[in-house]
């Protein structure tokens, strides 16, 4: 916080600099607190479940000091992959939402509204149903990669079509969103028809996949997702200033030296990659991409340098808590996490709309 006594004799740039430093410091502090919360939630999530792992035992296991082989196995092979997967997915979806909202300057943008999710869902459904009926293989067990690849391809395809439609109309963001909704519906219809025509085995896989969950979490998958996530985040955070400039409008951004077209393409591509690969492995999980950036904007402000990391942390935290709730609420029966996020996300979002401090919608 700015130092009031200093202001009398320090030159003016010192005063503004102190103010700036102060605001940076408090934002970093906020980020650290969120990080700490995430860490605590992670430990809590690992310890809770059908088999309780007491905290001291958990710490011993994590530091390699435990002799209890069963608990060690549960922690490392059952719970950790799933929890890490929840965190990675939360980060990807929230980051995708934050970037899309900044790019389109629209508070409604997220992987859902732009059609990524529906496209990815259709791709995955196609792989599951075609794999089972045409090639006679069960892709859910053996062909994770085929599903993921297909989900990614169709997620990208959806965005490309949406973006192409918007370009026909001068890249207007309204058209972009409406096209996203239309394409989303189209792919949803595709998913529905695949459901209708698929046989029982594939149908069950498909339905489970569509509801979203982290059953499929494996270290193998994470080995791909985590490096991808790190690279994507590194690219996106580099564009934070450009995204800030974009908030002043496209024309102004251009006169500030921002290559608007290029950052639009690069960011959309990276975000689509992030969102559709995680969706491919987890299924459809709604609301995180929409809610996390809005919560973050309330606690840390609109500067994308801080908003992006904050959205990531908030998204991870929300999804981790949702997944823990999904595991615990009706234990030992698990609820698909997509249901939890929608169940808590929708009312919460309405609350945000009504209580929001500022009007972003104008």
């Amino acid at each position, binding site marked *: 916080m700015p130092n009031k006594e200093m202001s009398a004799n320090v030159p*003016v740039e010192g005063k503004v600099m102190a103010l*700036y430093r102060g605001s940076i410091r408090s934002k970093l502090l906020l980020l650290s607190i969120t990080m700490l919360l995430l860490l605590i939630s992670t430990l809590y999530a690992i310890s809770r479940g059908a088999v309780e792992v007491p905290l001291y035992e958990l710490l011993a296991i994590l530091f390699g000091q435990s002799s209890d082989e069963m608990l060690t196995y549960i922690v490392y092979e059952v719970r950790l992959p799933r929890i890490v997967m929840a965190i990675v997915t939360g980060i990807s979806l929230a980051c995708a939402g934050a970037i899309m909202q900044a790019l389109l300057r629209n508070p409604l943008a997220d992987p859902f509204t732009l059609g990524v999710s529906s496209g990815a869902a259709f791709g995955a459904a196609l792989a599951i149903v075609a794999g089972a009926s045409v090639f006679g293989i069960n892709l859910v067990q053996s062909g994770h990669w085929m599903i993921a690849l297909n989900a990614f391809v169709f997620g990208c395809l959806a965005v490309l079509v949406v973006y192409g439609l918007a370009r026909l109309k001068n890249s207007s963001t309204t058209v972009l969103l409406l096209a996203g909704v239309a394409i989303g519906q189209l792919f949803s219809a595709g998913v529905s028809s695949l459901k209708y025509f698929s046989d029982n085995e594939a149908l069950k896989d498909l339905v489970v996949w569509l509801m979203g969950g982290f059953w499929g979490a494996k270290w193998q998958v994470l080995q791909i997702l985590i490096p991808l996530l790190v690279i994507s985040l590194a690219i996106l955070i580099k564009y934070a200033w450009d995204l800030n400039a974009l908030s002043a*409008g496209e024309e102004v951004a251009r006169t*500030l030296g921002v290559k608007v077209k290029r950052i639009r393409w690069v960011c959309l591509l990276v975000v689509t990659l992030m969102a559709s690969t995680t969706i491919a492995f987890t299924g459809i999980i709604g609301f995180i991409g929409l809610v996390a950036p809005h919560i973050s904007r309330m606690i840390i402000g*609109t500067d994308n340098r801080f908003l992006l990391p904050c959205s990531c942390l908030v998204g991870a935290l929300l999804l981790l808590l949702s997944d823990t709730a999904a595991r615990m609420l009706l234990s030992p029966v698990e609820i698909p996490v997509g249901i939890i996020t929608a169940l808590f996300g929708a009312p919460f979002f309405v609350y945000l709309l009504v209580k929001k401090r500022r009007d972003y919608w104008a």
Partner: protein
Amino acid sequence: MSMSRGDVVSIIGPNGAGKTTLLKSIASILPPNRRKVWLDARDVRSFSANELAKNQGYVPQHSSFGFPLTVLETILLGRKPYIKWGITAEDMRIVADIMEKLQLSSMSERYLDELSGGERQKVLIARALAQEPKVLLLDEPTSALDIRHQLEVLELVRELARQRQVLVVLILHDLELAARYSDHIYLLKDGKIFASGRPEEVFTPSHIEQVYGVQVEITPSSHGLKMTAIRPVSSS
């Protein structure tokens, strides 16, 4: 058209005469059709995006601010073309300087949408100034402001032109203010320059009648010209 640094140049004309189009062409937002824009004897199209951003600042007529930033963050954006890895002390000095000059220091942490129209306009001009431009392009900077803020903004702009040797190009609707604050005036009609020169040369009853279709009485006063619109003339 040729304009020189240290001058305040106004573009005026009736609605739809092409003022904004002209300004955007100068700012390289729109491709100048057939004509070229030269800055310090260099074709602006040979400038990189960042180079251009260091040479000219632009404030549009209608500013939207999707998710509003704070005043300080907005003005810091003006340093964007200079930023490599982070804000330097030099960036901060320039921004603080401008904020002090425009009396914005006290509101640095407020969000843009919490400000009045006049304050916001000053912030946006401050952002453009933080680019340390040689050319400042302002599209109707006074349109939403009350008379006091209009004067403040125009005084500021003229002072900047004089002190920092910046070329300021403005679009103005108010003819009296244009006459008072400009060194040079371009009067546009139907996308073409109808008349140009010093205010006294451009603002003649016959020019105004031909361009605006209004009969006016123009009398010199202690501050510029006094123009009284008498009646619209039926177009022939």
